């Protein structure tokens, strides 16, 4: 065990317990790769505010804890749709369940036409070479530090291969559920959209029961030439849950991704996103809707890299913080040498609803190519007094006017969602966490 720890006396109980987990895993075909990831993670340790990408999020409370794997749970022990239902009964959608990272495999082939589903435990035996291909793709160790931990310690997960346009949306319900205060889960998902395929995929994170485990999840999304994907990740866990998620994206020629990151639950949510626009004409529209409520802490860190000519990216973030919550949105666009005629746009707006709340935003640009169009802007404030007065002067009562403006603030992101049932459910859940929610419901 000590061979994995650079300085055992300095290591926290948390790090020692992660190393302990590594030792109890049965080595599989990924062992060398996992060991490398574990060593890198242990060397880096838990992030501190001195790490640039973690300036605003302090994980000190984790350090003194000793983590053990969250229990496996049978499907029958899970209450369906733990907190928020993104699909109505009447909708046609397919759903898959993952509990603490362990997938429930659907029975039989042809679950959805054009979708091939494998568990990662199976794939590591059947096609380790392919699986290693995904795991070896480099990611920023500082930004996505817990992706390293996930690589080292994930037990199972899902590989979804989309081979043609899917007729219905796919809902992936991630349930985190613990049997004690110090559980940890490592959900891992790989989604590969083959050339010219198309899909709408919702990853919906919820928790069940009293002790929500620490979740260190990772999703890898690869879009082949001409593929079109709409991907949602919705964080809706309990108020005591700590969720460290990273999303790694790689887009090939002329692929198009609409990505929605929605934080409306959890005590601490860290959502990393790394996107590589790797081939000509790839296009990414990334939307974040971040709601700080009660004492929630939401930290989003995006890095979008334009690595090929003619690639385009848009990042639109809307953050609302009430009570004593804190929302952080850092986005960075890197345009590599040679990525000429690339275009990027970043727009982040924050709305503070209480004097104790805090919003921090920082858009950054790093351009190493010529003939590039890049724009960014970030503003944070309270409700616009001119807008408020205008509505009051038309006879609307103050409560309605304020609620209407909050709703309008979110609209930019909501209107981008093409999946009506998901939009409606997300809207409903967001509104429930805002002041004057009773009034807000009338606008829908």
């Amino acid at each position, binding site marked *: 065990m000590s061979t994995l720890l650079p300085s055992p006396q300095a290591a926290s109980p948390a790090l020692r317990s992660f190393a302990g987990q590594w030792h109890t895993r049965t080595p599989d075909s990924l062992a060398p790769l996992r060991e490398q990831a574990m060593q890198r993670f242990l060397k880096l340790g838990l992030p501190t505010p001195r790490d640039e990408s973690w300036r605003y999020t302090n994980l000190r409370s984790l350090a003194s804890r000793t983590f053990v794997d969250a229990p496996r749970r049978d499907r029958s022990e899970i209450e369906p749709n733990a907190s928020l239902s993104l699909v109505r009964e009447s909708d046609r959608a397919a759903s898959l369940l993952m509990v603490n990272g362990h997938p429930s495999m659907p029975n039989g082939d042809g679950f959805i036409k054009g979708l091939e589903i494998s568990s990662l435990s199976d794939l590591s035996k059947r096609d380790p070479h392919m699986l290693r291909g995904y795991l070896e793709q480099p990611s920023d160790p500082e930004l996505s530090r817990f992706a390293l931990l996930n690589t080292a310690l994930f037990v199972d997960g899902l590989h979804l291969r989309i081979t043609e346009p899917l007729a219905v949306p796919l809902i992936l319900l991630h349930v985190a559920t613990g049997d004690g205060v110090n559980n940890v889960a490592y959900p891992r998902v790989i989604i590969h959209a083959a050339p010219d395929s198309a899909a709408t995929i919702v990853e919906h994170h919820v928790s069940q029961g009293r002790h929500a485990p620490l979740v260190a999840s990772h999703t890898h999304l690869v879009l082949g030439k001409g593929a079109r994907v709409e991907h949602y990740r919705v964080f809706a866990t309990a108020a005591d849950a700590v969720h460290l998620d990273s999303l790694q994206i790689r887009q090939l020629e002329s692929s198009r991704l609409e990505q929605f990151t929605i934080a409306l639950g959890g005590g601490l949510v860290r959502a990393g996103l790394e996107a590589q626009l790797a081939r000509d004409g790839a296009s990414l529209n990334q939307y974040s809707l971040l709601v700080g409520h009660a004492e929630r802490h939401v930290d989003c860190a995006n890095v979008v890299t334009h690595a090929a000519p003619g690639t385009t990216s848009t990042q639109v973030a809307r953050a609302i913080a009430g009570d004593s919550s804190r929302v952080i949105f850092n986005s960075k666009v890197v345009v590599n040498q040679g990525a000429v005629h690339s275009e990027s746009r970043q727009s982040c707006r924050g709305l503070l609803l209480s004097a104790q709340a805090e919003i921090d935003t920082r858009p950054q640009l790093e351009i190493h190519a010529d003939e590039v169009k890049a724009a960014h802007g970030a503003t944070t404030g309270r409700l616009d007094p001119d807008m408020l*007065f205008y509505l009051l002067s038309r006879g609307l009562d103050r409560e309605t006017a304020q609620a209407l403006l909050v709703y309008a603030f979110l609209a930019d992101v909501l209107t981008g969602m093409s999946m009506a049932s998901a939009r409606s459910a997300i809207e409903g859940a967001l509104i429930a966490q805002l002041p004057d929610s009773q009034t807000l419901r009338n606008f829908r």
Partner: protein
Amino acid sequence: MTLLKISDLKARVAGKDILKGLDLEVGAGQVHAIMGPNGSGKSTLAQVLAGREDYEVTGGSVAFEGRDLLAMPPEERARAGLFLGFQYPVEIPGVNNVYLLKAALNAKRKADGLAEVDAYEFLSLIRQKMKAMHMSDAFLTRGVNEGFSGGEKKRNEVLQMLVLEPKLAILDETDSGLDIDALKIVSAGVNSLRSPERAIVLVTHYQRLLDYVAPDRVHVLSGGRIVRSGDASLARELERRGYDWVLEGKVA
């Protein structure tokens, strides 16, 4: 009957005294024009009457149908029948233009003890008023003033006024930035609201609007006070001789 009675009104904006003892009386059925050079306090007067909170009233009184207007919050003033057409209507993306109209109308109806407007009736009312203002159906689906040109914003203000049918409409430079066709449309809208029980106060810099909406009374505002009042001919004389003529007259 006196609808609006302003007595010795004093107001301050950002620590600066703007209105310095203004008196004005507007009777039902009348159209008044308030003219004056830039910085004379015209817009401040309009904003104070509508209830803008960051404009501090430091003296005087305003009675609206005998009620103390200054004691009412802005939304109550609106429901009591006061309407301000803004000089610079704010854009509110994400708040639907028609939704606002409906919410405004229902707020007023509620205050009047009436039931909410029927959806079908409302839509036909809106279409009729939009037609009068030469506005296309596209306005129905857009955010409040979102992406509207200057002229479209002003027409939207008048549309709101026509739907709400206020007792007292204060139009703050609703004519500025309009081309001649738009000016005629806006004027026709304003004229259609004229009635024995209503009053209209036109705050304007130019005589142009008054060619189409004939005022009963014209006042010149300067240095935070009404310095001269007269009939419609005063506006024409101002246009010909400039504000200096009145201001010099005041000194003399």
